[in-house]
Structure formats: structure tokens, C-alpha cells
């Protein structure tokens, strides 16, 4: 109990950050019309592609002789890029359709 309390207190910046972000995430979506559900899902999908930043970070710190690390890191960057680029482009295509007169 005591440990949990001091954990919370020590990490309070992070906790506020997480709580506020969750609220923003929820609020930002509220009242979205049904037709936009699919593009919104797809757009959110592109945004979590930000995990690629972590993959790049890994690559920038991996040792040159760690071949497994290099290989997996390369793969991670590749997959992350697919997520980001594919996600944004496909979302754009969907939304383009909607706008067309």
C-alpha cells in the first residue's frame, strides 16, 4: 500500500499526463457521425504508427555488430513506415471519396 502510494506520488507528472491524454482522446471523438467511423478508425490507425519513432530510436542506438538487433530494427522501421504511410494515404483516399460532389 505504502509502495503504491509513493509510486503514484513519484510518478504524478506521468499520471496527470496519461489521465489528461485519455480525456482528450475521449472528448475529441465524441459525437462523430456514423459515416466517419471508418475513416476515423483508419486515421487513428495511422497515428499510432508513431511507434516508428521508437523503432528509429532503436536503430540509432544499436551496436554495429548486433546483427539480430540490426535486422529486427530494420524490420521494425519498415513495418512502422508501412503503418504510417499506408494509414495516412488510405485515410486520405477514403475521405477524398466523401468530398466528391
Amino acid at each position, binding site marked *: 500500500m505504502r509502495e503504491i502510494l509513493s509510486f503514484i506520488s513519484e510518478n504524478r507528472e506521468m499520471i496527470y499526463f496519461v489521465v489528461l491524454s485519455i480525456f482528450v482522446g475521449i472528448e475529441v471523438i465524441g459525437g462523430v457521425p456514423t459515416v466517419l467511423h471508418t475513416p476515423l478508425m483508419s486515421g*487513428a490507425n495511422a497515428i499510432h504508427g508513431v511507434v516508428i519513432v521508437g523503432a528509429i530510436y532503436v536503430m540509432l542506438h544499436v551496436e554495429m555488430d548486433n546483427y539480430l538487433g540490426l535486422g529486427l530494427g530494420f524490420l521494425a522501421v519498415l513495418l512502422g513506415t508501412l503503418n504510417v504511410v499506408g494509414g495516412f494515404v488510405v485515410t486520405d483516399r477514403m475521405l477524398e471519396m466523401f468530398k466528391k460532389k
Partner: protein
Amino acid sequence: MKHNILEICYLIGSVTFIMGLKMMGNAKTARKGNMVGALGMTIAILGTIFLHEGEVSGMIYGLIFGAIALGTIIGWMTAKKVQMTKMPELVSMFNGMGGACAALISLIEFNHYYHSEFPKVVLNAAITGAYHPPYGFLIAVFAGLVIGSISFSGSVIAFLKLNGTMDKPIRLPAYNIVNLVVLIITFGLLAFMVYSGGIILTNDLQPSGIMIYALLALALIYGILFTIPIGGADMPVVISLLNSFTGLAAAFGGFLYDNKVMLTGGILVGSAGTLLTVIMCKAMNRSLGSVIFGAFGGSTAAAGGPDVKGSIKDIQVSDLAVLMNYSKKVVIVPGYGLAVAQAQHVIHELELLLEERGVEVKYAIHPVAGRMPGHMNVLLAESNVSYDKLVEMDDINPEFEQTDVVLIVGANDVVNPAAKTDPSSPIYGMPILEVDRAKNIIVNKRSMSAGYAGIDNLLFYDPKCSMFFGDAKKALTELVAELKTME
């Protein structure tokens, strides 16, 4: 200095993600919102690469740029080339990539931690109880691995289902219990590994990092088990859920590196995605629980409904052509069958032909027609149907009174009067298109079989209703041909 600029890039990235998501929730600004998000992402990525402090060999940069270039080309091409109707598959695929990326990061970080000198010291200390690696690090690594892997394998299965490769829900006996057990084991192992530092001693007292592969395997298996019992039609909900899982995995990555843009992006998608999942379920009048634990996700529901039916009427293509040609106002109700049959182009042709002859034509769009939200809008937009011809349910319902012909193409549940009249029906309470107010009702489908909810439709026995059997594309092509011969 560089470091400070990078922090600002991340701040900008975080803000654009929030604003982008917000704008995507509104039809007018949606496209711009997507661009805003993409811009922020570009800033964050370029910043990470170019504002890095410290020596990095050229080969590493080469690998990074290579991976990005390759990913960009493949991602761009696939996204541009794919058919509109295959969108959900694609979203699912890209989501899986994100999950895999998060899992790989965890794997590399764990291996790094395991192989570096540090853990050897730690290990001894851990055995004697003197030192334990930071819990935060272990939680972030293992949770990122588990959630990312579940998201990856789940997305792959979802992809295969939407794809048609795996079209029946596969239900092992007592699958709910099996899944629960696997889930508990997975998280139990995770907890144990956090507690123990993730490294065990083999029989000959050598430290071994093997357990992480067990965790990986368990997570991958759970992702599969979680997704296979769910019917193909429920996949959009599942994808949305897996989407928020990947967000969570990205957030753990952010926690690992204390990287704020990963944290905001990840948490944002995690919470927004969860809410979106719930909203989507509501729009189809289902609960998230019934989707995941399978109430009727595809084929299980019994064909309910009252027994007293009546007889059905057929209509020939020539009669139908005459009827439509001399109508004043025709409303088309598109449904899932239209999408399956890929009949969106021919229906647009029909619409143009009728309009040419002075018939007013509109489309009635039910919010959950088809198999994903906005399915009909995307589909019809693809064949260049004008946006203002698509009328939403609440606006079109009062217009049916003045409608001469309602043409229902591959829709079923969304016009089922049981939703209004039969409290025992599984779809009771869902708002429907009130087509029975129109003068003539024409239904095009291949047979008398049920739709998504697996229930009978008394509309087909309505005296005003005639069936126009056949595959949507084929039948409509015939109708268009017949109409062309007239005049």
C-alpha cells in the same frame, strides 16, 4: 541544443495529433485533419533522425532510410491501388504492422538489456535479492511486447476473414473458457517476468532470456484465439479494438523511452479507439461483449420470427423496367449484397438512365447498411454517385410516402419491420428505413436467405412487395439493358 529542438518537434507532433483527430470527427474538416496528423508525424520522424545527438555510422542511416523508403513505396502503392471495398482489410493489415513494430522494439530492447554487461551484475544481485532492474522498464518492455503481438496476430486473422480466406467463424469447444485461460496465463507470465527481471537460470545455472519467447508465443496465440471465433461481419469492431491495442502498445514504447510524442499519440489512439469501438457497437445495436463473446456474430442465431407468413410475389425484369420507367420518384436502398456483388457501378448507371427519363432518384443510406460504418457512402462515392443524392435515414423516412418505387438491392436487416414491431427480435429497437410506406417495394437478392442478423424478414410478404431474384450485379445489368430497349 538539438535536443531542445527535438522536444519542440515532439510537442508540435502531439498537438497536431490531437487537432488532427478532432478535425477528422467532422465531415468538413476530416481530410484536412488527416493531413495535419500526417504533417505532425513527418516532423516527429524527421526530428528523430536528424536531431539525434551522438555518433551514428553511415550504414545505420542507410538502413533507416532504406527501410523508410521501402515502406513508403510499398505502403503508398498498396494504399493507392487497393479497391475501395477492400479498405477494412487494408486498415487491419496496417494496424498489424504497427503492433508488430511495437513488439519488435520490445524484443530488441530486452535482448539488449539481457546481453549488455549490466544484467550480469544485476542477475547476481537479483539472486541474492540486492538489486532489481527498474520495474518501469520491465513493465514497458513486456506489456509492449504482449499487446503489440496480440494486435499483430489478431489483425492478421481479421485480414484473412475480411479477405474471405477464412470465412466461417471457427469455434473451438468452450472457446470462451480456453481464451480466458490463455489470457490469464499470458498475463501471469508477464507479471512473473516483471517480478523476476525476466531472466531465469537454466539447469547449469546459466542465465537465459528464453522466457520472453514464451511470452511472445503466448501473446501471438492469444491474438489468434481472440479473433477466430468472431464472425466476419463483426470485423470492423474487432479492428477498431485492435487499433486501440496498438495505440496502447505504442504508448508503452513512449514510456520506455520517455518519449512524449509516442505517449500522446499512443494514449490518444488508445482512448479514442476504445470509445470509437463502443460507438460503433452502439450504432449496430450490439454490445461489445456480445461481439467478443459471440452472441450472433455471423451464423449462430436461430431463424426466429413469427410463423404466419403468406406468399411472396416475383417480378420479371420487363415488368420492372416498365414500372420504373413510368415512376415519378424512385428510392434505392443499397445494402451489403450490393457491396458483395460489386454492383455499385451498374446501380449508378441505372440512376443516370432513370434521371435522363425524368425520374427522380435518391439513395436511402442506413447508418449500418453494409459491413462497416459508412460502407455505402464509400462504395457509391467510388462509382461517382453525387454526394447529395445520398440521403440519411432520418431525412428519407418521411419521403417514402411520396415514393413510387423503392428498389432494395442486397439489403435486408435495415428494412426489416421486425425492428419496430417484434420485441422478441434480436434487432428490435434498431431504427430502420420505413420502406413499407412507399407505393411499390422491389427487393433484389439471390434467395430468401437471411441477412447479417440471421432473421426472417416479413417485409418480403407485404402485398406491395415483389421479389426480383438474382445476383445484384447481374440482375441490375439486365434491368438497365431492358430499360435501354424501351422508350
